[in-house]
């Protein structure tokens, strides 16, 4: 037992020494390749240096890199304010949201946080009176002139604007493998019927997976694009405002289209991340994949060439409609460093900030005065579409439905994926709208 005691004391001493050494040396900022979350700790004994703590779940890859780029712009503009990057990964944001929820409950908000513009922010945080309106900032910075008109109502409530959108992503995009389509004599279809017919042809020609899909949330993503494509923008948007009835036959048809699409997906979908599913297309294992245009950034990271290894088109039936989502930052009520937060928001909404963030992240700026030379082929086409198309909001990414409603839809979707019972699904959706949405 003496040996054991010696061992224990050694471990103890070692750990104390280790921790002593490490806490004296200032922790090195982690490397900025994919994987490092930069944390700049406050210098001990600083003279009350201004800080801003920004909370997000951008901890890796293009998102983290984009954030880094924007932070650099921020530091250049405001060298006296220290930026604290409080990012928490995992669970597609659930971990971060859990932390955020506990902090808000305990009245300890960060100075700003990242959220999806739209009902995700409004339905949750504004409803709980936790966000400050930003109209004053929009006027000061002249943002109303440079952000699309159709966007502003979607991020406001009762005339108050609640977030600063940094980027715009498009949700209703089909990525396809040009080689597979060409081999089978298919030109990218423009209607749902043609699209499904092409999938049938592909299946008969031996293509294992006409439509690649991943885990449950990508099914929701697929669903929202098909709802839009099948019902058209007016009815689709009406669903979310309570003007269009979820029980109507148009919805039934749309859900049946969704079921048809599902029948052409891979059987191991639930075990694939969205990256895995998208990769099936560029690897030649699948013909189509419906995913937001962050997939484009992923393809480029895989060193694939646009229009050679992959092509893109609006989800058949939704050409002319830009189903969008937007990452944005907010100003919480009671932010500990309100000035720092406002400084951050100014950068987030500035041309310099957005042009630093977006090319790296793989999205287009919310502002319409971007420096076009910084953007690649796909992004330029997206910018043109954004400027000319009708705008509709994404469900999966928090624009049109608040979190409670979306969670109920998600449960209904999960059950549908197992049962493929359209009628049951539709009535569950009707119930969800009544319980958490504007329906009566």
């Amino acid at each position: 037992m003496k040996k054991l005691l010696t061992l224990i004391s050694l471990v103890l001493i070692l750990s104390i020494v280790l921790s002593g050494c490490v806490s004296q040396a200032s922790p090195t900022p982690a490397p900025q390749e994919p994987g490092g979350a930069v944390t700049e700790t406050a210098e001990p004994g600083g003279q009350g240096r201004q800080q801003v703590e920004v909370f997000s779940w951008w901890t890796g890859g293009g998102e983290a890199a984009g954030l880094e780029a924007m932070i650099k712009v921020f530091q250049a503009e405001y060298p006296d304010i220290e930026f604290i990057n409080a990012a928490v990964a995992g669970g597609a944001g659930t971990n971060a949201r859990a932390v955020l929820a506990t902090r808000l409950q305990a009245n300890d908000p960060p100075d700003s946080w990242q959220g999806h513009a739209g009902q995700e922010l409004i339905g949750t945080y504004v409803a709980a009176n936790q966000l400050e309106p930003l109209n004053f900032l929009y006027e000061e910075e002249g943002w109303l002139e440079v952000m699309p008109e159709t966007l502003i109502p979607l991020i406001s409530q009762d005339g108050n604007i609640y977030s600063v959108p940094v980027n715009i992503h498009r949700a209703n995009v089909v990525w396809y493998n040009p080689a597979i389509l060409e081999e089978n004599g298919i030109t990218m279809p423009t209607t749902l019927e043609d699209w499904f017919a092409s999938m049938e042809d592909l299946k008969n020609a031996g293509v294992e997976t006409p439509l690649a899909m991943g885990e449950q949330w990508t099914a929701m993503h697929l669903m929202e694009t098909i709802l839009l494509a099948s019902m058209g923008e007016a009815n689709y948007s009406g669903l979310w405002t309570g003007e269009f009835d979820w029980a109507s036959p148009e919805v039934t048809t749309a859900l049946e289209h969704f079921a048809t699409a599902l029948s052409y997906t891979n059987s191991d979908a639930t075990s694939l991340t969205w990256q895995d599913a998208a990769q099936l297309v560029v690897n030649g294992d699948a013909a189509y994949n419906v995913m937001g245009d962050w997939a484009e950034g992923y393809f480029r990271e895989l060193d694939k060439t646009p229009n050679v290894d992959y092509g893109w088109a609006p989800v058949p039936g939704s050409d002319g409609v830009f189903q969008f989502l937007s990452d944005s930052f907010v100003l919480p009520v009671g932010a500990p460093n309100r000035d720092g937060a406002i400084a951050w928001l100014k950068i987030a909404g500035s041309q310099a900030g957005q042009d630093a963030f977006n090319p790296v992240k793989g999205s287009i700026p919310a502002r319409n005065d971007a420096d076009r030379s910084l953007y690649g082929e796909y992004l330029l086409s997206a910018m043109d579409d954004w400027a000319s198309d009708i705008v509709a909001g994404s469900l999966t990414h928090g624009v049109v439905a608040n979190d409670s409603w979306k969670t109920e839809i998600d449960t209904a979707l999960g059950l549908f994926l197992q049962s493929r019972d359209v009628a049951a699904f539709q009535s569950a959706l009707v119930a969800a709208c009544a319980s958490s949405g504007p329906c009566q």
Partner: protein
Amino acid sequence: MTRGRFQTRYLLYIPMVLAALFYLLPLYIMLVTGFKSFSEVSLATMWELPSGLYLDNFIEAFRALAPYLANSVRMVVPAAIISSIIGSINGYALAKWKFPGADIIFPAMLFGMFIPYQSILIPLVEFMKDINIFGVSLYGTVPGLIVTHVIYGIPFTTLTFRNYYATIPRELLEAGRMDGANIFGIYRSIILPISIPAFVVVLIWQFTSAWNDFLFAVVLTNPQAWPVTVALNNMAGSQIIAWNVQMAGSFLAALPTLLVYIFLGNYFLRGLMAGALKG
């Protein structure tokens, strides 16, 4: 006859080796991936050995995780030690000096082991925000996490020690009493020296559970105080995940507890066999 037994006994190695392979499988994948260069990593090649020992992954992972590994150590060691001591004292009191109600207090304490921690996150955070101990805020810091793990470790440590001490015969304590020792004296001179196996079991268990905890860590700490579990989780991020670095990081994060089990595992078993975890 010896010859027959010799052969049959050796047959027993077959299931043991197969079982060992099963247990080592994930470790193999982790290490093999950790040593690969980024281009070699893919689902299709996951079983293949790396072309060379690519140590950069480990270096990069270590650089990214080092401050958080230190946080974990700073948090886990005091938490394990303090909760073991508290458990020992509680176990001693509840097993050998039963005050009225001790037999109700004990199960009541034990019950705390079973709550789903997700359900108490919100009151926990609120409570931690309101408390300051000697000017050190409990929320967001390593001491806060230490206190949390100590408190939620009380049921388990108390259970272990109480059951262990329950097997100590009364006569031993009576002997001490007759020598004039009081409740503290008996603890110091009789109970403590023979508690080592129980301490080992409890220390190891608490070390592991505090080290591997993610839930409390993620809601109760600020970035400076993150233990390695949170940092590791963040390393993954999204888009393209550098699995080779991620696996190297995972291995590094698991290393301390692995070492504890490899080197102290035998003591753990001896502690169990000495009755530390009976029933």
